[in-house]
């Protein structure tokens, strides 16, 4: 099953390498990983999307907690949460496809950031499923390039991950 882990970690050199190294060494999966500092610059917040059986997720959580620099780990999928991912996609947009591409982008609430005679660069945010759906909706041959940030997640309502 897919899980979204939110991690508070000391903003120190090598901390990211420890997390990634742990996943590699123990054969855990990383579907996506996004990380940046928080409002407190001594700390980073990381969102890891992973998948595995309940036993595997339990081990991942325990092993992450064992890392000396990890302050807190929360499995966002344990409760209500919000998840967003940003995608930039450059598509072929020429001739009759041009209008269709614009319409499709509007339907997915995308924003066109850059235009040439032959292409659009579209910004799209949403949960990862929505981005997948957009990719599926357009003809594979029209995609020139995609770049995705991986999901960021946060708990709903009063659910807060902080020290």
């Amino acid at each position, binding site marked *: 099953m897919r899980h979204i882990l939110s991690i508070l970690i000391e903003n120190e050199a090598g901390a990211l390498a420890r997390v990634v190294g742990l996943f590699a060494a123990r054969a855990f999966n990383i579907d996506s990983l996004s990380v940046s500092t928080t409002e407190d610059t001594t700390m980073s917040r990381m969102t890891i999307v992973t998948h595995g059986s309940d036993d595997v997720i339990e081990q991942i959580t325990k092993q992450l907690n*064992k890392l000396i620099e990890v*302050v807190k780990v929360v499995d966002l999928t344990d409760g209500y949460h919000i998840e967003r991912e940003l995608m930039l996609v450059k598509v072929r947009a020429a001739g009759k496809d041009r209008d269709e591409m614009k319409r499709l982008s509007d339907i997915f609430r995308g924003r066109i950031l850059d235009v040439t005679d032959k292409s659009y660069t579209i910004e799209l945010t949403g949960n990862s499923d929505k981005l997948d759906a957009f990719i599926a909706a357009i003809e594979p041959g029209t995609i020139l390039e995609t770049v995705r940030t991986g999901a960021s997640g946060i708990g709903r309502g009063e659910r807060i991950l902080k020290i």
Partner: protein
Amino acid sequence: MSQETSPHGQPTLTHGQPHLTGAEIIMRCLAEEKVEFVFGYPGGAVLNIYDEIFKQDKFKHVLVRHEQAAVHAADAYSRSSQKIGVCLVTSGPGVTNAVTGIATAFMDSIPMVVISGQVPTHAIGQDAFQECDTVGITRPCVKHNFLVKDVKDLALTLKKAFYIASTGRPGPVLVDIPKDVTANKCAFEYPKEITMRSYSPAGKGHSGQIKKAVQLLLEAKRPMIYAGGGVVLNDASAQLTKLVRMLGAPCTNTLMGLGGFPASDPQFLGMLGMHGTYEANMAMQDCDVLLAVGARFDDRVIGNPGHFFRDGRKIIHIDIDPSSISKRVKVDVPIVGYVRDVLNEMISLIEASDKTPDAAALKSWWATVNEWQSKKCMVFKPTIGDGRIKPQAVVQALWNVTGGDAIITSDVGQHQMWAAQYYPFDKPRRWINSGGLGTMGVGIPYAMGAQLANPGATVACVTGEGSVQMCIQELSTCKQYNIPMKIINLNNRSLGMVRQWQEFFYGNRYAESYMNALPDFVKLAEAYGHVGMKIEKAGDVDGALREAFALKDRLVFMDFITDETENVFPMIPGGKGLSEMILAEDL
């Protein structure tokens, strides 16, 4: 020597405190930690540190012949004394040589601080001479590591290193210190206490879970206690022994836990696992309540977890490391905490309880256990005819000659298993071996560390002619520091454990497991300034051992030419379950 200066490198006074160099600060920190020995090897990046070592007399530096041995010796110093082992190596090859030692200590959760030199901060990343990415290389095999980029962080980092190494589940911590940091100066202050928001080792075990565990154990019909290295590391032998006797249950130790429960106690079933006793392994399978204490159900202990599963058996697991619990085996009552505290709480609960263990059920359980014991799985064929030496008999004779009270180190292989099987330990910290990583070559440096930590003790290294050659150069260190260990070389002219597997599972195709062109170990020992003995007849074993151990102040290398056809039994083939043992009598 580098000429870097630092912005805060002025030898001025602030608040009356003199500014010290990084190297001086390291000396002060080690003194604050009451370090007695530093095992190390000098090199370019640590020259400033060595210059300060030259000027101080708070600790003794032990110069090894290879960095791997420095780490092993520091590791055994810790294993045999409960103190933190400290070693010091230079950058680049100094560190890479140390990696085997660090990984060995990591697998067995040994508290240790490794200080490594690094090229100056401005040279990092420039592929400088003797540069390597030390924190990167060691990251997967340390509990934690640090690169100190500023001398102002040095004292706090070393404090953290000692704190992290020795608390929670212990482990090695490496501190990488660039050369300019050892030259730069700042005011020195060593923090007395330390708290880290990201690190809080587990506290007390959950009292509700502990109650549940006690209740299960008191109601058990066929209780079994399985104790590992955590009992030794947390000095919980007295508590374990008391609890086992209160419960009247059988008890087994893992390879790492030997001595954690006295082997001479009638409730002890011997070691369990791949080469464990028939009775210990059978009792693990057939008990109805299993109490695991500071052990981790690893592959060499329970074999295939699928085969280990038994419907209805309840498992209680006490461990300091939550990730050890329910990793390979699902448990019913997990208890995270220091095993000594948890055992103490269990003992108090039993003392306060009006319930007692079910005597009738225990009686019939012991009858079953006794039946398993009557198989006498540890009996080996005695010497016949030509008087070839049985390796097991050498270990038994060693036990007799040392009164069962020596510190025994071992290398890795058949001899290691025979030492574990035939030298029963009544006390913890007497059995020093590489259980997790299985590192050949640890034997001699382990004996060095153990002897330095316990100057009055009798220390013997049970090894084989394969393993012993992996750190043989340390015979030179032993000469320099007059370490009077006795080396029991069970020489079967082959890599015995490899050969055993080839005999059982590879159709007797002995690929590269034969040790050709062995040195003359007697001459080799003599060349290093020690005493060498060669023993070839079974009848000479006892006398030779007595003669060697009478030489109290000499290292004696005893080369026993043993029966090369001997194998280690019982044995659970890889991938099989605990009740699928091969016994000597089956063959």
